[in-house]
């Protein structure tokens, strides 16, 4: 059995979710290749070749691949699958957009957001916003899988796989890239951050969200997250969203400020190592998962927290 892993990257650097997906792939097979599809992504291919356990890196370059157009990536990956028994893709927005296309073209099911590999055809995945875990057995000859990377340990470094340059495939078809706005941030990336500070609807406005959450995040060297309620209300951009319909995070420390703890939010952060919650409603469900809970208004508690962190040398 041979497995192809789709590398998550931004054309400049390889993301940690790739290492984690390699770990999931190695649970299926010892023959794991990594596909780097991008534009100017030579350094990414080199980094992928260094992941321990990787047999070979396939590297394809084109504008449409670099822009992350689903049709272009699917048309590259689908014919490659003639040589593989499984495709594993980190469940990023890009992975979620192209992987089902590959599955449909191969006439197989996609097994979405796998959190555990039981055996070569049996996998565990969350359903109902993480309120249930479904174990499914696939009868398809080829498996197309997206991986919830936070549930797997990152594969180590020290590999020296060969890099093979391949053709870019037929391209994006009838889809044209117009433009892209990526929010530039000095903060760590949400999905990979060791500490996450998230704000909820209690913030009341985008200005208040920025005034309260961002300085605390910067003091901790943390990424900023938000509940779906805060995103829906327009207090924070969508890519801050932590939860079943947003990002799933599992940092060392998760700080929830003014977040009630709706099921859909808990699904996105309950695997965090330590959860701290500040909420003025002592009955809020967030306290049922928090290791450290403070029943207080964030308006007074966050400044106190900032002072206490400063006193502790942070």
């Amino acid at each position: 059995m041979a497995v192809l892993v789709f590398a998550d990257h931004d054309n400049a650097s390889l993301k940690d979710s790739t290492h984690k997906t390699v770990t999931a792939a190695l649970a299926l097979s010892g023959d794991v290749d990594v596909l780097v599809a991008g534009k100017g992504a030579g350094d990414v291919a080199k980094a992928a070749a260094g992941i321990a356990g990787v047999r070979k890196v396939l590297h394809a370059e084109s504008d449409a691949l670099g822009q992350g157009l689903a049709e272009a990536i699917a048309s590259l990956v689908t014919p490659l699958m003639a040589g593989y028994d499984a495709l594993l893709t980190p469940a990023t927005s890009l992975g979620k957009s192209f992987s089902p296309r590959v599955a449909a073209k191969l006439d197989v099911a996609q097994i979405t957001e796998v959190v555990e590999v039981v055996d070569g055809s049996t996998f565990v995945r969350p359903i109902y916003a993480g309120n249930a875990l479904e174990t499914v057995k696939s009868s398809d000859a080829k498996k197309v899988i997206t991986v919830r990377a936070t549930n797997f340990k990152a594969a180590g470094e020290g590999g020296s796989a060969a890099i093979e340059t391949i053709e870019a495939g037929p391209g994006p078809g009838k889809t044209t890239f117009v433009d892209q706005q990526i929010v530039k941030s000095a903060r760590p990336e949400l999905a990979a951050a060791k500490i996450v500070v998230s704000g909820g609807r209690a913030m009341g406005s985008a200005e208040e969200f920025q005034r309260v959450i961002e300085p605390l995040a910067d003091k901790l060297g943390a990424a900023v997250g938000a509940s779906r309620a805060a995103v829906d209300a327009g207090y924070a951009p969508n890519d801050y969203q932590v939860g079943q319909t947003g990002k799933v995070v599992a940092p060392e420390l998760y700080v929830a400020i003014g977040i009630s703890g709706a099921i859909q939010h808990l699904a996105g952060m309950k695997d965090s190592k330590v959860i701290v919650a500040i909420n003025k409603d002592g009955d809020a469900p967030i306290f049922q998962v928090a290791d450290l809970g403070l029943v207080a208004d964030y308006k007074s508690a966050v400044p106190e927290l900032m002072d206490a962190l400063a006193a502790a040398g942070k």
Partner: protein
Amino acid sequence: MKVLVPVKRVIDYNVKVRVKADQTGVDLANVKMAMNPFCEIAVEEAVRQKEKGAVTEVVAVSIGPAQAQETLRTALAMGADRAILIQTDQDLEPLAVAKVLAAVIAEEAPGAVIMGKQAIDGDNNATGQMLSALLDWPQAAFASEIVLSADSAKVTREIDGGLQTVDVALPAVITADLRLNEPRYASLPNIMKAKKKPLDVKELSALGVDTAPRLTVVKVAEPPKRSGGVKVESAADIVSNLKTNGVI
């Protein structure tokens, strides 16, 4: 232009789901059902596009049991013009749903499909992309803004780290993300009017589509419970605790 909007009947998002004791699935008996929230956003978008004059007809389609007619009536009350139910008691996987939708599209020939990015029961986030691949239509997944013109759509998409805008030639499949719009509540007069709008019911078997499941559910289990910890008295207690435990 005609727009097709697939909608799914799911457990109401406010209901806490319970796993059956025998681990064969979640308990659906006597549970409140509703239209999948992302499908509501898709219906709302199609209706708004019609109100703007970019769309002439909105057709809602659902694949499911007889009770899915209620979900379709909701779509009609929101402003869809007519509805189609492909009736089956079988629980279809995304690939099968995409194939059934492709068969409906072969008859209806819409200029675009607007649908939710995922259903909140199976959380697969796959059907729209699969449909687009089966039809060889372009896709724009996770839309937060759609500008329709006669032969193309300019779609702003939610991607990791920001937004991407793509231009897709029509016909295309567009999937709706959270921030595309806020769905309306159907007014009572519109609910009454919806009862008179056409709703065709067809048997799934009449379509001749292969809907055999590819996955067998081995079991459905409760996720491991996380136990709550301690309540502290002050922000300083939080910092000292984190420091003692080496977290910061």
